[in-house]
């Protein structure tokens, strides 16, 4: 049955609390931050420990926090796991240095990470150590740049601003 998020957080804390940099409950889901060195250990514990059993690999992605209005941050790799048995979610965040984005790979723990890390690599430029196949997944081979970084502007938006009305008020007042 579904675990209350606080119970889940307690379980995670018992298991790997000493390795976490931050831990909290966010909208009913456990949210933890780890440093890259501890990532593989924490994820393995989350998967293998019986009372956690986060066996389902939901996704792995990156978030570029450099343009947030309060607390701008750096680059972050976000791994989302789910426990089928105990029904709770864990968001694992890894802070990665934007100048030299390196993160250990969790391919050996979750097979699905192979493609997701490839995508994260081509979109954010993060190097995953341990994933031998980091070729482009979606983008063509000769694509330059990492599109999902905030510094990569969408050309059409950059050159020409959105011509339509930005507010319902503007639209009714005659803006397009």
């Amino acid at each position: 049955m579904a675990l209350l998020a606080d119970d889940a957080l307690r379980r995670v804390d018992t298991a790997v609390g000493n390795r976490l940099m931050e831990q909290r409950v966010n909208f009913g889901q456990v949210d933890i931050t780890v440093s890259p060195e501890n990532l593989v250990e924490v994820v393995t514990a989350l998967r293998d420990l019986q009372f956690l059993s986060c066996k389902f690999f939901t996704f792995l992605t990156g978030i570029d926090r450099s343009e947030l209005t309060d607390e701008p941050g750096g680059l972050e790799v976000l791994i989302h796991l789910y426990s089928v048995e105990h029904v709770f979610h864990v968001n694992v965040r890894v802070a990665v240095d934007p100048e030299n984005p390196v993160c250990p790979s969790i391919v050996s723990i979750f097979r699905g990470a192979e493609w997701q890390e490839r995508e994260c690599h081509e979109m954010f430029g993060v190097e995953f150590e341990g994933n031998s196949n980091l070729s482009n997944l979606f983008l063509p081979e000769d694509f330059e740049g990492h599109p999902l970084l905030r510094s990569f502007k969408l050309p059409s938006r950059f050159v020409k601003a959105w011509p339509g009305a930005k507010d319902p008020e503007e639209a009714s007042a005659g803006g397009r």
Partner: protein
Amino acid sequence: MATTEDRVVDASEVAAEVSRGNLLTEEMVLNVGPQHPATHGVFRLLATLDGEVLVKADPVIGYMHRGYEKLVEARDYRQITNLVSRMDWLSGINNELPLALALETLMEIEVPPRAQYMRVAMCEMNRILNHLMFFASFGAELGAITPTFYAFREREDIQMAMEMTTGGRMHFGFFRPGGLKEDAPKGFYQQALKGVRQVIERLPDYENLLIGNEIFKQRTVNVGILPRDVAYSYGVSGPIARGSDISFDVRKDEPYSGYDLFDFDVQSAPNGDCFDRFWVLLHEVVESAKIVEQAIEGMPDGPIMGKVPRVVQAPKGEVYVRTENPLGELGMYLVSDGDRRPYRLKIRTPSYSNVSALPYVLKNTYVSDMIAILGSFFFVLGDIDR
């Protein structure tokens, strides 16, 4: 004739090998796609063949990558609804739901019960449409051309119901944060019930046409087995996972939009082969039909839109919301900066994770089995490539 290596073999060498009892063979790399009748879109599979056996399969995706996650960063929440329904185009309205739910969670809007029931009815009708479409295409790939026509005939009535409400047959643009765009028109309930009841009535015939067929069983039983732990490890969800002795369903585990008020079962099958996945698909249609009936017969009166501010602006925060798309778990991780546009929207699509399990399942199968497995994996390219 192109071969894998440019090795010119002398006739005497071949003769020597044959006289020793060995057959000189070479592996051939066959490019399945991107244009191929059996791959549901621009999907490319680099298959290394040894005769008729697939030694290695390497999917190449990205032919339809439209850069959704970057596009939504430059758009209003109101504009994203229409963009997002073009991902899994066979289940149009189910794509809009997680976005609406994510905004409602962040903005703490309460959705009125009538809107919830309508949302459930439309999502389930779309599930039936999606599953019937895959029923048609799976049969066609195996050579049974007739189920296609029957399935499309059934889809017609349900699509008429969707069209009279939303104006579209494939892309709807109907859900808004807080509720729906407009209320159901006159005649919607009758049309929806008619379509759904027809499906329930005719489904046993279609089942017999394929599931009862000896040739079909030979082609799909014990073909393309996906073990349970491998499915978890790849993140496979939806009817494909439920064919591998897994019985999770977001609608039951973490109900959203009032699903806990409806009575339905989660279908699952033990073996994990193509036959089981297909069996789960067909039986989910019946469950969805039951839900639609319950939703329409128990539809409460009331408003269809909650209290939503004029300008849809999500407060700062992050949330992950997931729903049960017909093909699996569709989730949206929304990072909001307090603006009218999302700061970062990660769309977790089911087909992407499902298809990443293909190299594992396709090892050491025949070419014809590859077609059956690709068909039984029920993926939509828009979902994979976003």
